[in-house]
């Protein structure tokens, strides 16, 4: 008797669930475009009403500008409805990973330097079929196309180019009574300048640690690279030299002490340089306006100090973010058309401006330089300077980027607190790095 009751209850529950499911399907068909989009696609693939889901992360400024471009696109393509799915950075990739696992990812997805990890996981659509038709990349920087090319297939359009640089607080240089160096400075000059700055300023250090990004540039100045053509192209010796350089800088008083460095935040607004804890810090050029906007001090962007032996600055243009298309997108061609509009259309790029970095299309970039404001002009100038002086190829992120960056930071901290000698820490780092990379590369196979 009891068991029958239980059984009936279970049946009722299932019925309830099913009823809810179909109910909301009807109700949601206008708001949840995803399901309706798929249906129309299977019924009729001609110029029908379609819905594209476009996802990105960013701040308020990026949301405003991107939405404006989306509206422009919808106006010109009345059969396309774009459903924007935007959020802050927190949770963006967690959500994306869940969506990918469930087969419910947006059609157009914004990626950062981790695009390669997703290509390896085989969730991104190669765009080769659309290049030259829906999508024109003939005016795009060659190195940026390379950066999104894996196994000879092209996977994503670059939304902005950036370059690493050293941000210098000009106001603090003035307060210290020290003349600004030339833009072709060397590491020797850097080692001389920083202790002077620390000495002349109260509670401010010459430079904050340049981190892993600085290490990449440092390597490129020696014609060595973090990870290129499927292998690590540097030796433990290089790691030792880099960490020794910074150890010496800390000992001479030029670099921030560990206590200050460890408390540092990567967020521009809370960074050491904005807090006036240091005079110089390494940043990506697209972050320039976030830094200058957070303070009333005057900042200037410099290339990294040159290697006086090789005479190289080791800086290359880098993609900031990409738009890529989801592998199972039912409207891949429409998505490619949208990408084309987003990076090549003059009006669209004027709206987007420099928010994601300098435009990848050279014609569009020239158009923007002509009517840029002061901050943007400083960035374009720097990008132009780098594209003229650049002597290094673009190096994509290593496989397992997040884990390896964490490893690098941990190694720095081990050295800060003398838990290991520089030699020992550098060798351990190198060994673990090789293991990490092997792990990620094997996963792909």
């Amino acid at each position, binding site marked *: 008797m*009891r*068991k029958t009751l239980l059984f009936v209850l279970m049946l009722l529950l299932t019925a309830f*669930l099913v009823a*809810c*499911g179909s109910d*909301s*399907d009807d109700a*949601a068909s206008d*708001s*949840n475009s*995803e*399901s309706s989009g798929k249906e129309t696609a299977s019924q009729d693939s001609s110029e029908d009403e379609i819905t594209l*889901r476009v996802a990105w*992360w*960013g*701040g*308020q*400024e*990026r*949301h*405003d500008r991107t*939405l404006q471009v989306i509206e422009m696109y919808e106006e010109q393509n009345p059969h396309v409805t774009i*459903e*924007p*799915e*935007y*959020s*802050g*950075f*927190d*949770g963006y990739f*967690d*959500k994306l990973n*869940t*969506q990918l*696992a*469930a*087969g*419910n990812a947006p059609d157009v997805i914004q990626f*950062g330097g981790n695009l390669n990890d997703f290509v390896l996981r085989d969730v991104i659509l190669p765009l080769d079929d659309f290049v030259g038709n829906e999508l024109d990349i003939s005016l795009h920087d060659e190195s940026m196309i390379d950066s999104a090319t894996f196994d000879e297939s092209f996977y994503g359009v670059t939304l902005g180019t950036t370059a690493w640089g050293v941000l210098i607080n000009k106001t603090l240089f003035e307060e210290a009574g020290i003349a600004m160096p030339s833009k072709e400075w060397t590491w020797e000059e850097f080692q001389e300048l920083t202790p002077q700055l620390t000495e002349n300023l109260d509670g401010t250090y010459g430079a904050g640690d340049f981190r892993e990004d600085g290490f990449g540039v440092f390597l490129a100045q020696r014609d060595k690279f973090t990870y290129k053509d499927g292998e690590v192209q540097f030796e433990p010796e290089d790691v030792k030299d880099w960490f020794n350089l910074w150890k010496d800088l800390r000992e001479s008083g030029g670099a921030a002490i560990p206590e200050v460095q460890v408390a540092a935040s*990567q*967020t*521009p*607004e*809370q960074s050491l340089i*904005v*807090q*006036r804890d240091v005079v110089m810090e390494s940043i990506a050029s*697209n*972050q320039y*306006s*976030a830094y200058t*906007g*957070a*303070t*009333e*001090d005057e900042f200037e962007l410099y290339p990294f100090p040159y290697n006086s032996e090789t005479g190289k600055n080791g800086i290359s243009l880098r993609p900031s973010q990409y738009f890529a298309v989801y592998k199972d997108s039912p409207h891949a061609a429409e998505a490619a058309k949208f990408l084309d509009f987003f990076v090549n259309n003059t009006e669209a790029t004027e709206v987007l401006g420099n*928010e*994601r970095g300098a435009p990848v299309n050279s014609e569009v970039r020239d158009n923007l330089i002509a009517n840029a404001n002061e901050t943007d002009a400083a960035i374009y100038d720097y990008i132009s300077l780098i594209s003229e002086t650049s002597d290094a190829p673009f190096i994509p992120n290593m496989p397992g980027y997040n884990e390896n960056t964490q490893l690098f930071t941990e190694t720095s901290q081990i050295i800060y607190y003398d838990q290991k000698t520089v030699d020992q820490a550098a060798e351990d780092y190198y060994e673990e790095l090789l293991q990490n990379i092997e792990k990620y590369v094997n996963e792909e196979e």
Partner: protein
Amino acid sequence: MDTSTKLSRTLTHVFIILFGLIMLYPVLWMVSSSFKPESLIFSTPSIFSDTWTLENYKNGWQVVRDVTFGLFFKNSFLISAIAVVANLITCSMAAYAFARLRFPLKKLWFACMLMTIMLPAHATLIPQYTIFHELGWINSILPLTVPKLLATDAFFIFLMVQFFRGIPKELDESAIMDGCGIFQIYTKIILPLSVPVLITTSIFTFIWTWDDFFSQILYLNTVDQFTVPLGLRLFLDSQGQSSWGSVFAMSVISLVPITTVFFIFQRYIVEGIATTGIKG
């Protein structure tokens, strides 16, 4: 004698007030920062500032386009309210069954329920998402509210079971003598005697749902469905430009409902937890 007790009392109070201020400092800092011009927030981190502005509140409220923060408040309130009502009804029913009724394999079911508390949320994440996706519930509030109708918050069931067990069985028996059935014992005896634990459940459900970020960002895609925690993160891009002024201003506003709820009901929270603890 009299003066020395007075002195020690004053000293204690001074100490407590100072300590309280230290604990409150981050909140005070947030409130003061929300009134500062954006460029001064991090460059002059003092609580006291010469320039005050309401700009952050204006910018923050007007999120993007025609979407205002008011919409996020509406969505958050709706989800929280449904969650509270649903949890109150279904969790108390489940708890009543575990505490009073006899059914086969009761101990096993109870253990299963406890196990769901210990199961890490990440393990169930993707299967859950897939189910909701198949049902077509993504980008609606259904995945966030419907499960609450099925008494899925095992923690509250456990809390209530402990409380119900403390209610004397004799009351049930006398109710049976008066002709009450199982359901009437639940509504007429158990529930009226359990007000403290019901209030505790409501408050915690409200606060946890209001503060929940992860499941909300997972299931809500478009801005018109967004809730307050998602809205706050809309201003933040760890790699680029974040509007901290707006974040602080809106954080201050979003603290209002939650602190109000807490202050109105705080004595019940203590009562609910204390009584379950002693009698359980």
